[in-house]
């Protein structure tokens, strides 16, 4: 799956978690812009992991702050 397809899929998965309907761009941050707390992060990550059949460890999550970084990471992980 290429980056554009990964982006589209993650956008779809993020929708139910984006309670305030914040516009998501590459630079949107999960903690500040989307106000994800740790439980939301766990559920959201689990959905992505199941969809792409990958593991995003907490160590990797710690490096991901923005939406763009997440799409990059997932694109790389699912291609491996």
């Amino acid at each position, binding site marked *: 799956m290429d980056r554009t397809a990964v982006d589209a899929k993650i956008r779809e998965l993020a929708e139910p978690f984006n309670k305030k309907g914040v516009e998501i761009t590459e630079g949107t941050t999960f903690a500040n812009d989307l106000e994800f*707390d*740790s*439980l939301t992060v*766990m*559920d959201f990550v*689990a959905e992505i*992991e*199941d969809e792409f*059949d*990958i*593991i995003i*460890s*907490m*160590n*990797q999550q710690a490096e991901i702050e923005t939406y763009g970084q997440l799409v990059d990471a997932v694109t790389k992980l699912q291609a491996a």
Partner: protein
Amino acid sequence: MSRGISQSDQPIERSGDGTDLFSKFDDIIALREGLLASGQEDPFSLVMEKVLSPTRAICNGRETILLGTYNYMGMTFDPDVIEAGKQALTDFGSGTTGSRVLNGTYQGHKECEDALREFYGMDHAMVFSTGYQANLGIISTIAGKGDYIILDIDSHASIWDGCAMGNAEVVPFKHNDIEAMGKRLKRIPEGAGKLVILEGVYSMLGDVAPLKEMVAIAKRHGAMVLVDEAHSMGFIGENGRGVVEQAGVMDDVDFIIGTFSKSVGTVGGFCVSNHPKFEIMRLVCRPYVFTASLPPSVVATAATSIRKLMHGSNKRAHLWENSKTLHKGLKDLGFALGTDEPQSAIIAVIMPDLEQGAAMWEALIKGGLYVNLARPPATPANMTLLRCSLCAEHSESEVAQILSIFEAAGKQVGII
């Protein structure tokens, strides 16, 4: 009181442009001040002036029933335990002043490890200075860079800290979700070291892990399994070995971690294992090596208590009765509880929010009952809980009294 403490807040003058490293705590300082400003008694600075028994103390000047200790089996005032401690204090002195691997291993430490080996029927036992250090030490030492740890999201802080210290890849799964655990195990790269970490009883809600299923899946994927049995030792399972015993998976778990600060009734931590190379831990596990060993009196009380717990089936039966009675009573009164059925000696009463939880806590303490107020981030799903932990020494009439104090407080605060 020192002058430093009694001084009121003053602006801190700092040369240069450094920021106050304490500014990151401003939110929690404000939350706490807001709560106390309402005249609320501080739930986190209770002092027990006198301890009358495993179930009663004088707290803030009032005689209080203790329903928020981890003294599940009521061993703290057991005459044999006390006597063993006194004798060791006389014979071996007040402390070891050294590490287990240097001058800090006395006869008592070996006897304590012998007692643990017998209690669990395992080949190896290693005693740490606290339960926190047992988790910190074992987890960080065996799971290092490149290894994978798969753990329940509601794991205790000592488990998370052990994970962080070891630099392994950390993969959490949804609480008690067998399928979520299995999926994550399946995706771990071939050949990587895998450690699954579970708890027998999760201390916030008092619920039990489905260990039979989870341990089987972990083994099928070639993972090692570590189970923290802090809140079940002495109580759950036919011989009090914990949820692993109750679930019939004693032989399939690689490590059991536990503590002396709950059912055993003193302080300290341990790990038991059948791993043939386990003894090397004594040389490579830093939280074991680089700290002083437990005082002789502590290991003597622990060893005596552990041996008595092996024969504690009557106490275990009474504690189950207490747990069932309290659970049913609270449910009938209309409180929301953490589990539908009593699963352990912990019964968590779910509060609508922190303010009402704190008010309820205060009404209970004024009514003569101490419970734990638990709040985020220690609690799952940002819940505020009043955690009740029962003791085998609570009498039937004490449990009835506890329920009437809950009823009065619940009505006063308007929760029921």
